[in-house]
């Protein structure tokens, strides 16, 4: 992200120091992570010490300091999904991808995350991949679901950009 782009985001919030969370969210949404140089530039512009920016960036789960994978797999860990066997689903993803929640595969294709309730409890266990929901997931369905997003195949089947 260029310094001009960062500065224009800061402008959107009138350069207010208290808008740091919103600014970081906008950057995260665009870049899919918070690059170190961007955070340092932000600190200078907003007169916030880097120790505080780092504290904020690492406190909130919305932010990632490492680049995310091409496809974001979010497994719902809400109670309803858990009670319907959600744990097995996450365990299966971990087994298939070799990464744990919060991690990205070495080939940068997948990032695995868990979230506390997607609000789709009726279809639980639920997994969202790139915003596409897969309801009534089970450990047996994980492999075939992942196939849709593996490199080599046409990128996803969700018709999104």
């Amino acid at each position, binding site marked *: 992200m260029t310094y001009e782009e960062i500065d224009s985001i800061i402008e959107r919030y009138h350069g207010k120091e208290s808008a740091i969370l919103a600014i970081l969210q906008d950057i995260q949404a665009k870049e899919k992570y918070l690059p170190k140089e961007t955070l340092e530039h932000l600190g200078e512009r907003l007169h916030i010490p880097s120790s505080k920016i780092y504290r*904020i960036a690492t406190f*909130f789960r919305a932010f990632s300091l490492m680049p995310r994978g091409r496809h974001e797999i979010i497994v719902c860990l809400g109670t*309803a999904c858990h009670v319907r066997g959600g744990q097995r689903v996450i365990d299966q993803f971990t087994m298939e991808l070799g990464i744990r929640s919060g991690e990205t595969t070495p080939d940068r294709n997948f990032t695995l995350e868990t979230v506390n309730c997607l609000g789709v409890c009726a*279809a639980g266990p639920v997994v969202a991949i790139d915003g596409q929901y897969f309801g009534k997931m089970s450990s047996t369905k994980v492999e075939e679901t992942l196939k849709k997003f593996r490199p080599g195949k046409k990128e996803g089947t969700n018709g999104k950009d």
Partner: protein
Amino acid sequence: MGKISSPQELERYQNEILSKRDPHQPCVTVCGGTGCHASGCHQVIDAFRKVLQDHSQGNGINIRVTGCHGFCERGPLVVIYPQKILYQRVKPEDARTIFEETVLNGKVIESLLYDHPTTGTRIVHEEEVPFYQKQMRIIFGNNGNIDPTRIEDYLAVGGYRALSKALFSMTPEEIIREVKKANLRGRGGGGFPAGVKWETCKKAPGDIKYVICNADEGDPGAYMDRSLLEGNPHSVLEGMIIGAYAIGSHEGYVYVRNEYPLAVVNIGIAIQQDRELGLLGENILGSKFDFDVQISRGGGAFVCGESTALMASLEGNVGEPRAKHIHTVVSGLWDRPSNLNNVETWANVPVIIERGADRYTQIGTEGSKGTKIFSLVGKVNNTGLVEVPMGITLREIVYDIGGGIPGGKKFKAVQTGGPSGGCIPESLINLPVDFDRLTEVGSMMGSGGMIVMDESTCMVDVAKYFTNFLKDESCGKCTSCREGTKRMHEILTEITEGRGKPEHIDLLEELGWVTAETSLCGLGQTAPNPVLSTIRYFRDEYREHIINKRCPAKVCRVLLRYRILSDVCTRCGRCAKVCPVKAITGKKKTKKEAGEPFQIDTEKCIKCGMCFETCKFEAVEVQ
């Protein structure tokens, strides 16, 4: 339509909107709530749009995408007006048939109607469906009648009449008196009387005061606030404007969790529309009262649902709570008097002002007036969002509204109040649901999550699950919560993995005591509830795990033993294929050979359960 500058103008505009609406005109409403979204309602909406576009008689028929109807189990939901015929589990392919048969010819399509699980009868109208019958959808009901992105819809159902009444026929003191009389208690979980909060804030010294809407709904399994914000954002805003007027605040914030992008969008649209019509901003409705609202997004931290953490986050800091000896209503956001209420609490305000406290208090119990929206999920037939009068029993919610436990399994417990709450066992199923009764039995109302559990739910695992959640969400500031949740989780893990010791139960209780008594904020103070309540009502299950190293519900993996029943095994070999550690051996049945039954090497078995899930013949037994 420019800014409305008087209550009379508002009324005129409302009448104008109503006059243009023909209640007899056919309208297709499709639920656009999250649950239906996941079931594919957008494809259904697109299908209807295409049908109306292509069809010669498609002109003049409206499609309305509404807020959540609550019956998420049966989504996508479609209601055809004017007859109010409810179709459930609608697929995109059904759009054409629905249009031609029902919309044009008034014929009902049997196969799309709700079918009663026991009698099998088909039910045509929404109100007659058992899921809705015992509900009282005062707050949530309008979701199905409006498109949340159109303020005209909200005005058409009487929206902003309460605001008009408050600004022009009542004084701030009268408003507060009314809210106190209604005994509106916080719907976010605390149950604190909102009127008292408002009064304290109003009396606090300082000219600048804030009203805040806590939309950081973080309880896993609860999505009521989400559906209210997405489905009827104006109801929340109207409540906030009335509250701000009563308290003397001119600046408001809606703090929404960042995992709710649609809620952020819809409330943003609502705020913009309010500003255009003069319902927000300067001189609201010509009353000389100024008030405006800003949206702030959460950053993915459950602890930010706690008021001081939320305010710290609004100020641009980490969501670390502070001691509350001086309350936030006196010194909150930027050390100024701040009144924070939950989404559902705010949505109750216009209802109280319009109906009056006397009528409002006719619903509910002595200590808990009005209704509560619950997210009824888990092992229950009719999962979804339900709104019930306070005082209704758990039995009525789980069985009459929820339709009982699927698969004929036995009810075991209901978890209320999310990670801060506790479980309520079968013996208390007739408990009337109200703030104080739930607290008495070791749980709490919480934000409204109601998770039904059956015999295949392990209560020790449930305690471990919640403790794990809290351990991850703890801000880590105070020793009690950070170490307390960590160690409780550690012990629960020992127990569920076969290393439980008899002294562990006492240790859990002691840890629970110190975490509850000495934590800095509500997260830590209520963190032991899931553990302590499961120990209270399911001590035997804990003992079974510790002493006999058995999990009766067959959930705790390490304690399970998988076995293939040789007389049931068809020798298809599927299990061996999916076993990740190649622990299953046997001979596949072929055209030439009978094969040999497959067997699991228990030394290698990692208890992942893949074989059990894969076997189509139920030959895998779990002990």
